């Protein structure tokens, strides 16, 4: 573990006390730096959600097996063709309350019905929240329970322009029954969560010199017998300054090793037209958080089920959901939907690329070697609202599946795929979600 040694050496050379050293070594963001846990391969899992179904004819490869052609929508991933899997024939079979979109997103990672409730969409019965935990949170809990795989956050839930509305259509992830997890869709807010503490320390250290001057000025404004309180305060501030500066020196050293606190572009408001920029900022933050080993599970939710982004940057003025209801015969809508889904795929490709070009800290290879991205959707196809053939495209080598193939499963319940994820992470389950759909066990043929 070269990093650990050099860190201790550096601190020792810089003349820090043992106590100060311990303090720094225990900073949560530092603990993470280093090789994958002893005895196990580093594994990360990312779910990317995009809404409203796809255009199957331009999405699914026609062939199956390891020689297949990427259709238009998947073209952005061509660079990763040998590291991807398309899983056709995986179906969300969950019935019960809620409209197709609600069950589409609410049962996608949970594999279980929604509670009865009062939120009504379309012509189906109304529903509430999911009755169970989602697979990302389940795996996070397993990883967090093991000291070898425990990280500062366990999981991170990213969003891009998710409406400020807590309802079944805007929640993908569940910590348990009736416990939806809200994604953070503001990159600045995510930044605060990830780096707030370090950033604030840096900020504080940078203003300390000014404060020292101010304390001295203030002292002169008091009677001699009152000055002691400010002197005491100043002495403490100086003490603090020393400690903080050392910490920051150390952080700088760390940043030269590739663990820099990222810099976000300033003043990017949460607006439809900023979606491309927000998506990149969020993905960059995710990559950084993996480098720092803040979490090994992430969800990345682009808008929401029934999402209405207007992709004006592609020359499309209509909202996505509205377009997704148009019949296939509506040529211009059809073409726009292909473009929209291609744009989503570009996001997946961007993340894959960032992961592929970022070295795994403390180990050989890249982040993508130890990360699997699962790109999915609440519907198979927008205008039919079918939850058969849910889009599942996997990129990267985190789960140890045999990649570079297009697979055909016929019509299997998606619960079995959720079980495969658990199994691949080393935590096989007899069932996940509704057990009625789990009898045949996890999917075969993935590894």
């Amino acid at each position: 573990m070269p990093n650990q040694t050099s860190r201790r050496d550096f601190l020792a050379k810089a003349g820090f006390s043992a106590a100060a050293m311990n303090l720094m070594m225990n900073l949560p963001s530092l603990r993470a730096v280093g090789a994958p846990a002893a005895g196990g391969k580093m594994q990360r899992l990312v779910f990317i959600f995009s809404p409203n179904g796809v255009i199957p004819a331009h999405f699914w490869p026609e062939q199956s097996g390891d020689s297949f052609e990427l259709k238009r929508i998947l073209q952005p991933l061509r660079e990763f063709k040998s590291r991807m899997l398309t899983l056709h024939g995986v179906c969300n079979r969950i019935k019960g309350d809620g409209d197709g979109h609600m069950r589409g997103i609410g049962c996608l990672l949970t594999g279980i019905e929604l509670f009865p409730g009062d939120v009504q969409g379309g012509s189906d019965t109304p529903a509430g929240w999911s009755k169970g935990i989602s697979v990302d949170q389940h795996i996070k809990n397993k990883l967090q329970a093991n000291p070898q795989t425990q990280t500062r956050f366990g999981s991170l839930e990213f969003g891009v322009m998710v409406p400020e509305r807590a309802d079944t259509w805007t929640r993908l992830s569940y910590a348990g029954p009736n416990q939806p997890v809200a994604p953070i869709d503001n990159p600045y807010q995510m930044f605060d969560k990830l780096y707030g503490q370090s950033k604030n320390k840096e900020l504080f250290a940078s203003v300390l010199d000014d404060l020292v001057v101010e304390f001295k000025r203030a002292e002169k404004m008091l009677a001699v017998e009152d000055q002691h309180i400010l002197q005491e305060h100043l002495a403490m501030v100086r003490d603090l300054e020393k400690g903080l500066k050392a910490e920051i020196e150390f952080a700088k050293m760390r940043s030269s090793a590739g663990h820099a606190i990222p810099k976000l572009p300033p003043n990017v408001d949460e607006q439809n037209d900023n979606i491309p920029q927000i998506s990149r900022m969020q993905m960059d933050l995710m990559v950084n958080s993996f480098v720092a080993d803040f979490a090994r599970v992430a969800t990345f939710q682009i808008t929401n089920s029934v999402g209405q982004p207007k992709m004006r940057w592609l020359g499309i003025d209509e909202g996505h959901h509205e377009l997704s209801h148009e019949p296939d015969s509506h040529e211009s809508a059809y073409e726009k939907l292909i473009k929209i889904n291609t744009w989503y795929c570009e996001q997946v490709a961007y993340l894959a690329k960032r992961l592929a070009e970022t070295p795994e800290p403390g180990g050989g290879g890249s982040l993508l070697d130890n990360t699997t991205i699962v790109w999915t959707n609440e519907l198979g196809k927008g205008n039919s609202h079918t939850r058969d053939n849910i889009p599942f495209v996997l990129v990267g080598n985190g789960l140890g599946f045999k990649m570079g193939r297009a697979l055909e499963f016929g019509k299997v319940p998606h619960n079995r795929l959720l079980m495969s994820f658990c199994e691949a992470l080393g935590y096989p389950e007899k069932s996940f979600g509704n057990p009625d759909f789990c009898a045949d066990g996890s999917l075969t043929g993935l590894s």
Partner: protein
Amino acid sequence: MGTIGKGHLLSVALLINAICAERIFCQDKAQIELLSAEQSALMEHGEKIYLQKCSMCHGAKGEGVSSRHPEPLVGDATVAELTKIIEETMPEDDPQSCLGKDAAAVAAFIHYVFYSESAIVRNRTPRIAVARLTANQLRQSLADLYGHFGDTVEVTDQHGLQGTYFDGARWKRENKKLDRIDPTIDFDFAKASPVDGVQAKAFYISWEGGVKPDVTGRYEIVVRSTCSFVLDFGKIDRELINNHVQSEGQTEFRRSVYLLAGRVYPLKLIFVQRERKTEQPPARISLGWVPPHGTEQIIPNQNLLIGDFPPVFALQAELPPDDRSYGYERGVAIDRIWDESTTAAGIEFGQIAAVELWPSSRRRDSGDDQRAKLRSFLNELVTTAFRQPLDDSLRKLYVDQQLNSEPDDGEAIKRAVLVAIKSPRFLYPALDRESSQSQRVANRLALTLYDSLPSDQWLIDLVRKNELETDLQIRAAAERMVEDYRARAKTREMLYEWMNLSQVAEITKNSASFPDFSPELVDELRQSLDLFIEEVVWSKRSDFRQFFQADWSYTTQRLEQSYGPGWRPRENSGPKFRKTAHDRQAHCGLLTHPFLLSHLAYNDTTSPIHRGVFLIRYMLGRTLRPPAEAFTPLSPNLHPDLTTRERVELQTSPNECQTCHSKINSLGFAMENLDAVGRFRTHEKEKAINSAGRYTTRKGDEIKFSGVHELADFIANSEDVRQAFVNRAFLHFVKQPPAAFRRSTVHVLSDRFVRNRYSIRDLITDIAVTATKEN
């Protein structure tokens, strides 16, 4: 004149040393009260001899006499050593004239009164000490720094929430069926229609108004709802609980929030029953809370206010508790934990400023240059935080420099806020000596009355126009500020500390003896006391004596059932809490209030000792030493024939107990007509109650009374009670010793209190005005 054994002398010395080692804060010889009768007699004897034989050379207070013995009489010799010196050498012209007991008496006297180190500390002229903001002052200051950018809160006496009822599951003007004031939120509509004209199957109710907590601290807000609801709290659109989606199995929602007393948190609760194909749950909703030191209750009517209220910020960061060794909070501890907590506070405030203050400011301000707007916003923020206008160098440091080092607006705000909050100019309110007099007066008034900084536009305008210079101007401003909710909250806090009731969480009684003394009853008693106190203080007369002489109380149906006809409401109908009829037999203000009385009692029996200590320490402001050792009260079962009075007399009969208990018991016994839950009684164990009691005042007058009515009349007009109250109020509001302003501050304020017919409001105004007069 015989000689005294060495052993005795030594014991005097030890005793006196022990007393002096205690932290003593009184400024005069009233401290001698702490001594036993024997010791004070010794002191008095010593003083007499000293004045006769010593003071011509050493000065009346040991300060020295320039022509004879100029050095002051101070040092670290013990009493025994001093005695020896006196015996052998003093007075110089006749060393044989002060021996034995006389020498010991003089030694004890000078040692205690001016010679010893602890006497010097004790006699030091009290001065106004510079302190940092206390935790509460920091919270309040940040709340006002935030509030500065909104409207001023108007005081209202309209309680409850504004309910608006719509037919159908959404807000639609034409479907509005009813506007009404709901006293509290606790509804079970079941499957029926909530109000006429609204169908049971689908409705939309909005409740709006404000919540005013009485106590500062961590609350749990509890909503129980079977249907969809969204609760905005602190600011409309600041969601505290979002249950937009009603989902089976989820009906209880709790959120922990730190709230400040005297702030009105705007609130909006939207409750929706939606029509659906599946079965509907019955519609129920309640809005409750668990206050600090309290138990869960529906948010009471008196804490709900009708009206539009500006947004409120309450710091959620934890702050370490402050030093209370002087009996009031002082910001004197400077340590890392405190420092880190102020950093956390600065960061939290920076975030809220960036998210909530800046956007509205940006809209308000005209002009196009975003950065110029931001500069002016930060300038206003820092000016308010520092309680003084910024000169060029300050503006450069606190605004320009911070702004220039951050391109992102949000980050720039966080940075500037952090520097400002960590600055001594914010943390030490006393650093305003270079400001104008009006500015300093406004700063003192806000600190005294609100524990905060000047933030209201009217006050800032007075500063700008330099109109806080004359006594008349200052008093007018103080009078206006006293009416504010913030000052009212601080007053309430003071009164609860005065009654020693701030920390009382629950009161329980033996359920076999007092079956109806339920938690609900205690809750109603607490509210009844709250309402009583509010009424006494904030009614027009604001007459302090009413605390003891009011012949009425606030009652409910339950209280009437439990406490009898004296607790029957004056009016037959009306709100849940109504006043009782005037009944001098049943009510002597606080002294007959069952909340206080049941708190000052055991599970089954009264406790004359608790009641006596309450009176002597809190009401009369006298000092009591703790007992030499801890005693367990005698069990009533061991003495089945004795009344409580007899049992207490028996247990405290030894001489060493009687020094204090003769004072304590004789006050507590006067309340024996009120049982362990505060109900009137004439007999205990078939013996008539003996409620005779007495008290010796500070001036030495012996007062006798029988029963709580005579006791109440005495307390209401007692000089000791008045001075204790003035002193406590002063310490609570100003957080500096009264004598630091003027030796006679307490006497002057106390006299004015009498002249103003005991008006509590006027007293607080007087205290605030006094606090502006520091030199």
